[in-house]
């Protein structure tokens, strides 16, 4: 028992360092995908204080719309734009139908409402586009770089690299949007203090629509990437739960936190599964991230970059 936990894994790491690097890299790439989902949570929580559990359902719905349109014969680029428009329309209706009547309610009521939206979206998407698993091929091969493999013996997947690039691109755009544009500044103002923002004339309702649209578009990107990896199916809706430990690790309100948290969780999870999974009975990926996040929270309740205003009781 002792040996399986504390000796063997380290010997394995020492013996095959290249394999360790491979595991680490693939974990980091998976982490990028987690951060992409976590990003959607952060954007909405930052600007409206709503803990949006529907992010996973939004990922599924966006991916389903994209695949559905593409299969109907629409040009892929056009269907990308159309799905983005659908997500924006969705944001408008959410703001109008759900958020506006609930203004001033407790956060838990909003939380439950997003759960209701989750059920609705899951059902709605599958009613329209059907519930079967669809494969999505966006033309990026799911194979390692052969040149690199020949030279160094490292197998690094092209698709993983592609998704990392897409994700960093999105992060840069979002960071620019939040810091450089007028709307971005308004968003941060709302995040700091709703009332003060309202009193200097920032329209709260518009802001909410914008954040939900942005979260929807981030969800679309996440949906396409996850969808081409796993196939577009109901399980996509559940990856939201994978993003939650990332959130507590990084803090609910921090974009860099979401990215870094995703990387830590992704690589930690992979390494734990490969080296310690066997000793613990396998499939520890399900809860490992949560336990890491929990232990982390005990020492640093505000997360990696979270604001320090969380009251410690």
């Amino acid at each position, binding site marked *: 028992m002792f040996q399986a936990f504390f000796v063997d894994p380290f010997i394995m790491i020492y013996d095959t360092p290249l394999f360790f690097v491979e595991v680490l890299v693939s974990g980091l790439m998976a982490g990028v995908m987690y951060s992409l989902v976590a990003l959607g949570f952060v954007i909405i929580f930052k600007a409206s204080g709503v803990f949006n559990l529907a992010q996973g359902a939004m990922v599924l719905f966006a991916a389903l719309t994209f695949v559905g349109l593409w299969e109907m014969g629409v040009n892929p680029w056009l269907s990308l734009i159309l799905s983005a428009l659908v997500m924006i329309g969705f944001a408008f209706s959410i703001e109008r139908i759900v958020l506006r009547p609930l203004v001033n309610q407790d956060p838990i009521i909003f939380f439950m409402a997003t759960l209701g939206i989750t059920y*609705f979206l899951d059902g709605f998407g599958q009613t329209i586009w059907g519930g079967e698993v669809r494969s999505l091929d966006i033309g990026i091969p799911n194979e390692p770089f052969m040149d690199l493999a020949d030279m160094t013996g490292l197998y690094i997947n092209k698709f993983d690299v592609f998704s990392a690039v897409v994700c960093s691109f999105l992060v840069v755009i979002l960071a620019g949007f939040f810091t450089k544009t007028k709307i971005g500044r308004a968003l941060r103002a709302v995040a700091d203090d709703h009332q003060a923002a309202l009193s200097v004339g920032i329209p709260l309702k518009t802001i909410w629509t914008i954040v939900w649209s942005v979260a929807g578009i981030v969800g679309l990107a996440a949906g396409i990437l996850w969808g081409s990896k796993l196939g577009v199916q109901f399980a996509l809706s559940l990856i939201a739960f994978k993003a939650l430990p990332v959130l507590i690790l990084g803090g609910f309100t921090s974009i860099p936190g979401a990215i870094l948290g995703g990387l830590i969780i992704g690589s930690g999870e992979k390494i734990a599964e490969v080296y310690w999974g066997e000793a613990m009975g396998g499939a520890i990926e399900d809860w490992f991230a949560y336990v890491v996040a929990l232990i982390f929270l005990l020492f640093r309740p505000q997360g990696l970059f979270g604001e320090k205003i969380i009251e*410690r009781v």
Partner: protein
Amino acid sequence: MIYREAGQFKTTYKSDQALLPIAQDRFFVMALIAFAYIVIPMVANDYWLNSIFLQFFIFSLAALGLNILTGYAGQLSLGTGGFMACGAFSAFKLATSFPDLHIVFVLFLAGLITAVVGMFFGIPSLRIKGFYLAVATLAAQFFLLWLFNRVPWFTNYSSSGVISPPPIKLFGDYYITGTEATNLTQYFFTLTLVIVLALAARNIIRGHIGRSWMAIRDMDIAAEIIGISPLKAKLSAFAVSSFYCGIAGALWAFLYTGTVEPLAFEINQSFKILFMIIIGGLGSILGSFVGAAFIVVLPIFLNSAPALLGLELSGSLVTHIEFMVFGALIVFFLIVEPHGLARLWGIAKEKLRLWPFPY
């Protein structure tokens, strides 16, 4: 006119502190209990007894447990399913290891074990609160299910990972679990258990512990200043809540389904129970029951609605539409009455006091 407490004088402290100080409430509750004990068993068939009432009782116990934690102590938890699984599996281990143990003790001990587990997973609540805590309790959900799935000891090395509780006698020749158990025995047993536990919950909540929970919920710092220990209050809330959830889980495995696998307690179950207390009413015993009834009956109604309307739909489409309508109804109820159905009942009582002369 009907519902009016005028003229009901209280001459002793005891009657002043009664659970139901108003005579009409007392009669109503007694009539309801009598109805549940006498009329329902006479008219209901097996389907109603097993699929609706048993399920309703079990869910209301779980909802009661979660309501204690979330509604009264203010600690948001998403780990209900995990705690129910813990109750189910510990009851299974107890029943198979000690075949002579009476079912009441099995349930009680399973509840106690779950309470300890719940206290353990409640420790983070001392450092964090709100949604951070909710996500932290998800750790309980995923970890416990993984444990019961992966560690064969919990399922007595069953190859499929499914547990089937052994047949247990309630008394005499009456079986409470297994194939020989009749729905009627199970109905009476669960009904009695639910009434006893609901009474206990009501009394805990009006007592010292319950008041400290509510103080912590309303303002933790103020509560601490007046001398309530957050450590004790929060951990006791987790313990009592998990005790109820554990018993509910054990009943689910032993009485309702008969065989159970860890998957039956997955995350959707936790959400379902959270829905019950939100729709029924946070911080209300009545609300737990109303919410449970609503969530139990709604899918059955939705399932049969297309047939009633004369529509022919494929099975998967019906499921998807059910999801959709369920989600939409949740949002609708939240918008119409964010404080839950129990609040509607409260408003109705206020109206009834004045009726028919509102001024």
